[in-house]
């Protein structure tokens, strides 16, 4: 039974990856981000986004950003929020610090709920 569960989870994970890959392919905005930059972006999400959204992204002054919390959100919409902020809230526009590709990378990263 344990083996079955493991296989099931692996399948699910593969499926999840496939779905995300499909979205990525369909979205020219999420162009390649160099590996080193991706590492810096991950650090930024955890530490700087984490200041408001929590290091585990479960929320704080800002809303939770876990994959569960973002369930169904379009990556384009997330990118837009990252780049332009949400007027009337504490979410600032990150466009001065991020390219559109980088914002797209973060959107996908969040939707995959990387730890």
């Amino acid at each position, binding site marked *: 039974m344990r083996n079955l569960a493991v296989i099931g989870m692996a399948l699910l994970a593969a499926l999840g990856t496939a779905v995300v890959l499909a979205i990525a392919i369909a979205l020219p905005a999420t162009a390649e981000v160099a590996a080193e930059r991706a590492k810096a972006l991950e650090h930024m999400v955890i530490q700087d986004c984490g200041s408001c959204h*929590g290091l*585990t992204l479960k929320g*704080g002054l800002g809303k939770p950003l876990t994959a569960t919390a973002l369930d169904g959100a379009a990556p384009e919409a997330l990118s837009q929020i990252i780049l332009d902020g949400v007027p009337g809230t*504490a979410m600032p526009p990150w466009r001065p610090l991020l390219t559109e590709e980088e914002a797209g990378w973060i959107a996908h990263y969040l939707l995959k709920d990387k730890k």
Partner: protein
Amino acid sequence: MKTLALCLSLMAAPLLTAPAMAQTPCCATGDLGVVVERATGSLLLVDRSDHAAIGRVEGLGDLSHASVTFSPDERFAYVFGRDGGLTKVDMLTQTIAARIIQAGNSIGGAISDDGKLIAVSNYEPGGVKVFDADTLALVGDIPGTSKTIGLVDVPGRRFAWSTWDSGEAFMADFSGADMKVTKLGDVGKNPFDAVLTDDAHTYLIGLFGEKGVTAIDLWDDVPAPVRFLQDYGKTEDDLPVYKMPHLQGWAFTEGQFVLPAVGQHELLWVNRETLEEVDRTPTHGQPVFIIAQPASPFVWVNFATPLNDTVQIVDSRNHQVVATLTPGKAVLHMEFAPRGAEVWISSRDDEKILIYDTHTREKIAEIPAQSPSGIFFTARAHRTGL
């Protein structure tokens, strides 16, 4: 604190050796402190005199916005974690004395002036909970639907706080047999933090959602909010704020308040009596903490990402920047020795605590730490408002 190891071994020994302890006084905590290691959920115990880490306590949960307050005997550190955890850490045995998860998401707390009560302000669910400082048993619950911010202790077993969503301020009074909660008033849109002046006279509330600062005179029989600095705060045209300023360090110096501008790279100097703006100081970035160097005319300022590798020192007499330091990457916090001789600065991304002599402004020591954020010395035990 060189005797700490000896002391710990004595504590583990049978009771019969108690007289030996009397002959070898040890385990003083007056020059100790803790450093929040935000990513690993641990607390680094540090010795101020030795410029050294002396231990680490782990298992404190999500510390992405952690703050710490101390028991009056400076033995216990109460750590308020992002995940709603409230942990009582014994600085002597370097162990967790008690730990509860009291909410889903919290932001900070304070200890009552008699050291008996710990209040925690929560985001999710909103509201404030008050605990017995000894046992962490719940003694008061003030539920709310709004995120709470700016919780301070007020003399007389009281606590005050404000609410981010509904823009109100409240006071809970524990001096009588029953808890008494009073609304202090409507203070403005989206207060982001609040602070009590060192004389416990004025509760100052910074607003994010509209212009202005709100002051409440707590010495008044009927405290009421008064708005000042009507052009202070953020508007759509302002610069993005990549980290909320903190007001706990709002410096009170030379008869002035020094406030971080919100959405501007400036400090604002306000006359403490008239509440009029007297000057502005252009700074390196969006100020986060402005902290007065004790027993001096200077305030030290750090900044929001991405300009957070820099610390500036400003003279409160002429409002000029007198020094600009670059201690390390992602400077998150500064804590002064109680008499101001040195300042400890956390560099999150260099994974270090940097210790500066405040007279020469030269670095005199470093301590490795894991993603350090807040630094808290035990002397805070004796400061009103924390």
